[in-house]
């Protein structure tokens, strides 16, 4: 039984390495090659591995330095009895994108449903959605680098110190700030918005807080980081394409801003809060049993 001081020490060592191993290469690449060149094109694809796997490497280094062992590494699949969580990981992003795009049509499309179903033909829609559902989970190795660090180590340590809600909030802020080096260069939101770059970083933190609820729930339910990695991969690689069927009335002059994104993603944030509630309920049940 390790005490809180030891857990805090381990957490701080992990955070140091997670940021150092990701930010130092990211800064160098941004200065030498430029963010667009190395991150958004296929010119230097190998460089992504240096940045994306920072948290995973930090996990490994921290465990080695602190002689912690691998007993809670969450590297096992635990597929038996948990297939529904794996399926949830594949489908949840697509399902959450539907109410988000419906809201976008209602709020920013003037509730004009005349273009509904016209972006894709039924065959295209079905084919594209199926293709994404089948192939995007295979890209989970890209997001494994982050999830093995955040959900596989940071969340476990943090939960012992500040509880589940605290972990979700603080962990989400840390995760969002970790993206800052890329957000500043235009990742996700570009560079010509009001409040650049602070608003972008703030919104990133907010998104990460809510998404962290979903990913943490998947991790705790299965005892494995793979569902979280799959859900994260779905998010990064077109998992929300299912919702675009419901887009309508969005003109060519539509300007996507952070404020609008915040409104559009309300259904997603609400859904993620449900997962937090489920985690807290399970925690209460476990506490009552003991």
């Amino acid at each position, binding site marked *: 039984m390790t005490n809180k001081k030891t857990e805090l020490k381990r957490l701080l060592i992990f955070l140091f390495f997670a940021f150092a191993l990701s930010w130092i290469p990211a800064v160098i690449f941004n200065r030498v090659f430029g963010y667009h060149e190395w991150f958004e094109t296929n010119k230097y694809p*190998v460089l992504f591995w240096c940045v994306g796997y920072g948290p995973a490497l930090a996990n490994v280094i921290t465990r080695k330095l602190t002689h912690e062992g691998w007993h809670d590494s969450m590297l096992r699949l635990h597929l038996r009895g948990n297939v529904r969580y794996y399926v949830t990981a594949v489908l949840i992003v697509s399902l959450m994108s539907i109410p988000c795009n419906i809201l976008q049509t209602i709020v920013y499309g003037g509730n004009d449903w005349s273009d509904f179903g016209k972006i894709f033909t039924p065959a295209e829609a079905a084919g594209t959605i*199926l293709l994404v559902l089948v192939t995007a989970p295979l890209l989970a190795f890209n997001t494994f680098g982050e999830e093995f660090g955040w959900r596989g180590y940071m969340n476990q340590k943090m939960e012992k110190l500040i509880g589940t809600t605290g972990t979700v909030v603080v962990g989400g802020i840390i995760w969002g700030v970790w993206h800052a080096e890329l957000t500043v260069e235009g990742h996700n939101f570009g560079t010509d918005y009001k409040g650049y770059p602070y608003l972008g970083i703030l919104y990133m933190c907010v998104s990460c807080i809510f998404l962290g609820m979903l990913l943490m729930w998947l991790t705790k339910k299965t005892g494995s980081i793979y569902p979280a990695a799959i859900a994260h991969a779905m998010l990064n690689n077109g998992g929300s394409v299912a919702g675009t069927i419901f887009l309508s009335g969005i003109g060519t002059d539509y300007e996507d801003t952070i404020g609008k994104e915040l409104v559009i993603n309300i259904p997603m944030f609400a859904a993620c809060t449900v997962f937090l509630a489920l985690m807290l309920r399970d925690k209460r049940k476990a506490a009552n049993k003991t």
Partner: protein
Amino acid sequence: MTAFRSLFFRELRITRKAHILAAAVTLFAALYFILAIFAIKSMKLSEFSSYEEMISYRSSLVLMSAVIMCFLPVITNVTDTSSLKSDINSGWLRYSYAMPIEPSVRAAVLVAMKLVFSISGMIFGIICTCFYCHFAETDFQSCYPVIYAVIFDISMLSSLYFDSIIFTARSAEELKKKTNITGLTLLAVIAVPSCILAKKVSGSAINVNNIISRLSKPVMLVWLIPLAAALSAADYFIIRKKLSVPYGSAKSNKRTKPEKKAVITDTHDYPTGFLYKELKQNRLNIILTAVLPLFMLILNYSMAFVMSLDGSEGDLKTLFMTGEAKIFYYLTTALGAYIASGLITSVFSGDDRKLWAYFTVSTPQSVKGFMYYKYVLCFALNGAYLVGCIFTNSIYDTVCYAVTGRESSDFSMILFMIFFLILFSCAIDVPLMVRYGQKKGSIINSSLMLTISIVIIVAFSFLPEKAQDRIFQLAINLRNGSAGEYSILILSISLLLILAGYALSYRISCKIFMKGVDGYDK
């Protein structure tokens, strides 16, 4: 002489399966080349830029057939270890030292076997080449006998190295290890000089007419044939020396160090049971599968380096930019996929034993648990191979951009297709191996796949040209993501069906597991 005849007959009996297989492979190659020449012959003159180009294509194909029809029988006979393996496994090798059999007689028999079957194979190859020349309406070049002699000499030279190592083996494990090491070394040693030689013989680019004109000197046979005889004699002396002692080298008698046993005190989430067994048994497979793409990339770069040995920097850039470079990269990727498929299904090797099968059934997890971990491991290995491929592809694209300044197109869709193809192959292969054992199952699977491939290739070659072009264009559009709406739907449904098929394959394997047990070895 009596001893020689008896041993020769014994060798024939032991190695008959290997020779039948070699003959079947040679016949298949012969048939393949007939079809290929027929396909080229049916092309019209208008499809070529000139009559000379048409003849050059046909000559290239005949030259390639001559090389392969000689190479196949010679190399399969020269590197055949089935006889030695059988002697070691049966214990006859050790027992024979108590019998009045001279090592010189043994060596003479082995060399005679090699020469008889190699020369028979070469004669068949020459007859095939004559037929191809007649069928393709090209002349029988005087370089063909020279090529045959060169290949035979290179093979006998390889055999000297090969035999000097493997004939020191006195146990099955030792033989397997030495065969693998010598095979890999030979591949590296032959491949590199061959490329340099081909480039030097043909000039700045591999030109078939240059090769033919430089090798069309029958006078070379004057020293090639005696060289072959000398190499055969040297092989005889090497085998005689190695077989003169009943025990191998001092190294093979050394006791192996006891394996370090990790003492695990905290077993909170460590694998146990069948999972532990699979991970422990297949740890080498797991590592090899993950790093295989890196090996293929190194092979690809090594070939590019060898091809640019004339020192011009422009050549290195050209090698990355040309279509040939890309094709070669795709070929190494395909070869890697083929090897990975073999590595993945080899997780079943060693488990086709009655004793183990009955033990499995007696455990609480039973057959379902056993098969579950096998299938999960196969899927995980396939995933590891995919990750390895994507990583090495990212290295390749980065290097390409650094050398040429051009951004490469995205190759990941092809890698995903390879993932699903390997999964499909496993879904078919595994139930066959479970039902018939690893050896028989692999043969049945290979025969099935070969038959289907031949049928598809032959059917495709008989399609009208427009239809062929449409199929190629569809594949290109799919790769570029610009295929029609139904194509994407069909593709995505196919991938889903492959996943469903993999799950179904698991259920089938569980059901037929006990049926296969009766056919396993004890």
